[in-house]
């Protein structure tokens, strides 16, 4: 019940601050771009767009969201409320993953690249949760937006480079254990899609739990006193 209330609050927050409007514009733009590209490039381009934008939106926005909540003393209220850190993490991750999945699906369907809707949705949803969890881990320990941007660069490189290499044809078998590769594999409905789904679930759960741990630690030291 608390998670549901938090989730609704987060969705309302994202709607109020223009996330839905922003991604409506970007969805139209991406679909138009897909049709401006040669048909042979469309699938790879669509997957690349989905992977680097809607799926990764948590890594981009989480810093601003958490810093805003810190500034408004939302986290102080959360710390003394019955809300558990895990509920807060689940709500943040799933609210962002919902919008990311909707946008990803629209781009995928618009570009005609959704081969297996189940794997596609799973890939974008879990990918968005993973990126958001990483964003949350970084965000709880920073004080400015510039710090957040800089601190997320290693994570972006770690997740993006092998995944993009996989998308463009460098596919050694062991790379399927990489979370970014799993997202690409699921979106493309590749030969290893089922294994990728299981691996990505493990990565997402692990990162969500680690984000929960980091958040709980940060909440304990709010206000300058370590509890």
């Amino acid at each position: 019940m608390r998670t549901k209330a938090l989730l609704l609050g987060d969705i309302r927050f994202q709607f109020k601050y223009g996330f839905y409007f922003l991604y409506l514009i970007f969805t139209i733009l991406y679909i138009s771009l897909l049709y401006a590209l040669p048909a042979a490039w469309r699938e790879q381009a669509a997957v690349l767009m989905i992977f680097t934008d809607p799926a990764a939106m948590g890594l981009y926005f989480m810093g601003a969201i958490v810093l805003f909540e810190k500034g408004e003393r939302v986290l102080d209220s959360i710390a003394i409320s019955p809300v558990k850190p895990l509920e807060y993490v689940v709500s943040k991750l799933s609210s962002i993953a919902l919008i990311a999945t909707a946008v990803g699906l629209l781009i995928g369907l618009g570009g005609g690249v959704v081969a297996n809707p189940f794997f596609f949705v799973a890939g974008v949803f879990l990918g968005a949760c993973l990126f958001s969890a990483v964003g949350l881990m970084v965000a709880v320990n920073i004080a400015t937006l510039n710090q957040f941007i800089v601190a997320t660069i290693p994570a972006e490189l770690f997740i993006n480079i092998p995944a993009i290499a996989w998308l463009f044809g460098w596919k050694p078998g062991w790379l399927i254990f990489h979370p970014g590769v799993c997202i690409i594999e699921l979106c493309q409905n590749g030969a290893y899609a089922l294994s990728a789904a299981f691996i990505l679930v493990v990565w997402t759960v692990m990162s969500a739990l680690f984000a929960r741990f980091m958040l709980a630690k940060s909440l304990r030291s709010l206000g300058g006193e370590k509890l």
Partner: protein
Amino acid sequence: MKPLIRSFALFVKQIFSDSMLATICIATVLAACFIRFGIPLIEIVLCSYFEREAILADYYLLFDLLLALVTPYMICFASAMMMLTEYDENMASYLAVTPVGKRGYILSRLVFPAGIAFAVSIVLMRWFSLTEWPLGMIPLICLLTCLLSVAVALLLFSFSHNRVEGVAMGKLSGLLMLGLPAPFFLPSDVQYLFSPLPSFWFAKLCMERNVIFLLPALLSALLWIGLLSKKFIRKIA
């Protein structure tokens, strides 16, 4: 002058302590090296794979324009993010009523950083550009990209009420750059749909090498800055 320099020093200190300064330095050099050495290498690989004479070579000028834009854009983006933080913490209004003043705040957060970006951009363009640039054209295009970056920072700050909206606006502001590839990929008159964007005229100016395009390039950039400055000043009042 002293409060102004102190305010600018505060900006430099902040982005230095955030590691943003180091990141911008490394990122610009990496981007420049990638454009200068990576792109021709990729061109060779692509041409031999697809058995064609040129694939990316036709767009080297576009890469040069991106090179001219990358430094001022990153510096002004970092500046806008810092201003948003200062606004959220009410620092911007406080600074505006100190001897720094509104004018000083704009100078120390936007004009000085853009000035430094201008100098760095010229150096990068001189050493790392892929195409031949006539004398005088490099400072001109660097000046224009600096003006555009200032407009982006103003847009980002003026139209957002807090950091969250600022970051969303930052993403949206990337659309202002869409004018750069338009003349390269849209040969028909459809490209003029992008004419409200200064970046479109920058690309036209460099492609056509016709000074007539300097006027709309400069005017459109100044118009964006002028309109956004009013909103910016009202916001920090």
